[in-house]
């Protein structure tokens, strides 16, 4: 009965119609009834009711694009089929905050990545404002308030620096649109940072994993108060960022290389640097990164937690499920309703309530608070006006503007644009059906 009462009290604080309140109460009763068959279940639910999960990475926005062309009117986010995420399952999984990834394919780099990014930001914003269960948040305080209001908080993160097209103004405008975290790369190098993947043969450099412009990007993110996310970046880039960033950084969805030696995972030396940085590794649940095989189970996942705790402490750990961004997940963790099963296993492995409170939410809050503090300390710093040298951007869809010729015919604003050489038939738009 303790489970039912604590669940009901947290829901009571929310602004819900009485009908949905009773519906949720009945659901809680059903969950509880099932739960009592499994020993320790009531502890997990109580724990996760007090410390509901902040998850670092979910690609629902990508699925909305691929499956529905961002037509929210075609779907009911309360219950979705063919994907692992919806509102009902978030609630069952005690997910209180989700960082939704704004991702555009690497093929759009040097083409229309910026426009596609705006469209993905738009769909997350719409999703989070059109459903009363969601609340778009952009600060630690708003995140905390959303819990008190019984809402699922949405944070927006960009997955890949190619989204900014090497433009600090674009970065600033994304921040203004609510983006609070950015992964510096996805599976392609940018003109200023390196990916852990060699899949795309672009922007290859020797011994220059974070260029001077890349450092300026990190500095501007620190100044704005945008979390730097190192998932998908190369180890050299990660190391360079860990030295350069004034604020703690995160790996929003990466696991331990020592447990599963995939290049997307984080090796021990970087974990130790992360510890010094007071940053956060949010463990990815995708099989390929958990067991390095096509199959995995909860125990494999828990091994990552145990290992990282032993190396750098539980205060450095969070969860970044990567649901919707991958297709195979461990038995027992198939979708976002299953997080309690993972916490159950960690409880069984004698993780303390305090450690799990950290993993579930407090460690992320600490990092986000520190990022905001660094922003406040840098408040007298002017917005950066550094521009990437044209030869570094090397983008045929990039126009150089020059002063209009005073002898040109009259018009209001002569175009004043010099077109650089563009190959014939070259398009600057990525094909609409492209996906990786």
């Amino acid at each position, binding site marked *: 009965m303790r489970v039912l009462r604590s669940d009901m009290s947290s829901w009571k604080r929310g602004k819900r119609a009485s009908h949905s309140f009773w519906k949720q109460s009945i659901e809680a009763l059903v969950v509880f009834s099932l739960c009592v068959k499994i020993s320790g279940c009531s502890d997990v639910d109580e724990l996760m009711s007090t410390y509901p999960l902040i998850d670092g990475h979910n690609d629902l926005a990508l699925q909305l694009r691929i499956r529905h062309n961002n037509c929210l009117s075609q779907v009911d986010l309360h219950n979705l089929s063919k994907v692992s995420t919806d509102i009902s399952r978030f609630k069952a999984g005690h997910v209180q905050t989700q960082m939704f990834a704004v991702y555009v394919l690497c093929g759009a780099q040097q083409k229309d990545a910026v426009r596609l990014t705006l469209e993905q930001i738009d769909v997350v914003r719409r999703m989070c404002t059109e459903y009363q269960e969601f609340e778009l948040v952009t600060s630690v305080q708003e995140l905390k308030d959303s819990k008190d209001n019984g809402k699922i908080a949405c944070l927006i993160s960009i997955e890949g620096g190619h989204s900014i097209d090497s433009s600090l103004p*674009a970065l600033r405008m994304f921040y203004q649109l609510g983006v609070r975290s950015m992964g510096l790369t996805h599976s392609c190098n940018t003109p200023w940072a390196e990916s852990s993947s060699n899949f795309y043969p672009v922007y290859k450099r020797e011994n220059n994993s974070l260029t001077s412009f890349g450092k300026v990007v990190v500095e501007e993110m620190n100044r704005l108060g945008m979390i730097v996310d190192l998932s998908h970046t190369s180890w050299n880039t990660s190391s360079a960022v860990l030295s350069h960033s004034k604020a703690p950084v995160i790996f929003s969805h990466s696991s331990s290389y020592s447990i599963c030696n995939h290049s997307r995972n984080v090796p021990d030396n970087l974990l130790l640097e992360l510890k010094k940085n007071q940053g956060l590794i949010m463990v990815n649940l995708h099989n390929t990164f958990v067991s390095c095989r096509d199959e995995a189970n909860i125990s494999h996942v828990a091994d990552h937690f145990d290992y990282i705790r032993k190396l750098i402490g539980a205060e450095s750990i969070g969860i970044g499920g990567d649901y919707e961004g991958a297709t195979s997940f461990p038995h027992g963790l198939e979708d976002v309703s299953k997080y309690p099963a993972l916490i159950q296993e960690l409880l069984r492995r004698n993780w303390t309530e305090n450690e799990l409170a950290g993993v579930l939410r407090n460690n992320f809050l600490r990092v986000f608070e520190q990022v905001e503090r660094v922003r406040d300390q840098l408040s007298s710093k002017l917005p950066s006006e550094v521009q990437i040298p044209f030869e570094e951007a090397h983008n045929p869809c990039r126009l150089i503007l020059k002063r209009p010729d005073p002898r040109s015919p009259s018009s209001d604003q002569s175009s004043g644009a010099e077109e650089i050489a563009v190959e014939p038939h070259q398009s600057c738009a990525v094909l609409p059906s492209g996906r990786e």
Partner: protein
Amino acid sequence: MSETPLIDGHNDLPWQLLSQFNNQLNKVDLNTLANTHTNIPKIKDGRLGAQFWAAYVPCDTQYKDAVRQTLEQIDVIHRMCQKYPEIFMFATSSQDILDAFKMNKTASLIGVEGGHSLDSSLGTLRTMYQLGVRYLTLTHSCNTPWVDNWLVDTGSEPSEHKGLSSFGKQVIAEMNRLGMLIDLAHVSEEVMNQVLTLSKAPVIFSHSSAYTICPHKRNVPDDVLRRVNETKGIVMVNFYNDYVTCSNTASLSDVADHFDHIKKVAGADIIGFGGDYDGVPRVPEGLEDVSKVPNLVAELLKRGWTDEEVKAALGNNLLRVMSEVEKVRNKCTHARTQIHTHTQIT
């Protein structure tokens, strides 16, 4: 001018910041900037109450990096307001304009000049609205995949859409729903008429003058002026010599003739100021820069304009239009978001 803010519909200082200074605002002092129509002392002398700053990128960026470059222009306008907070107050509503006026600051709004900046994307339109953009000029001097520009009327470009395509109509509907002002400066006459029929909210011409006085295809013919009056929109007069006298030279009096003509044909309730300063190479004698606009106000009074008519032209007409656009937005709150994404034609 102490009772009603002068609200100007279009100023290209951001374009000058880009083309002269590469947006290096940290290295520019707007207090001493010498070779532009606009700087802070001139703004103060000109009693500029509110300004729509143009976020403009050239048509050559269409199908290339127009979106990114437009974001950079939106960013420089925000940074300008942040750099001079005692002069500029960033504004996104009619109420903001009034609040800025009470604080003796110039309300600063953003207009994106050219539909090519959207890359045919309603998601881009919505996010630009979120960034504070409050008008979109549907075209600059190029057709987009969904709307025709004024050059079509000169015969120098073929019409691609006979006005608006069906996607263009969705753009209009979405702008009404969002509460973004529709700006018809630079569009073809067919587009003017189609939008005046379609739009649920009043529309603007942010910087266009009277065709009867100067028959330039950038100007507004009388029948359209009358339709603007019927729909309670606004035509904000452009000071560019070539649109005022259809020649290289003009005087303040020539500009006042446009005001008089529009008042005669369609009434004082549809007139405003849309100087186009820093977007054009030739401005009239007597209106050499933004500090001189009060002289135009004096000329109108001299010509027998009543105080009410002058105040209407200065700011009340634009405030009315903006409030009405905001009302239409509020009524549309429950309308379904338009979500279709136009596939680019290559």
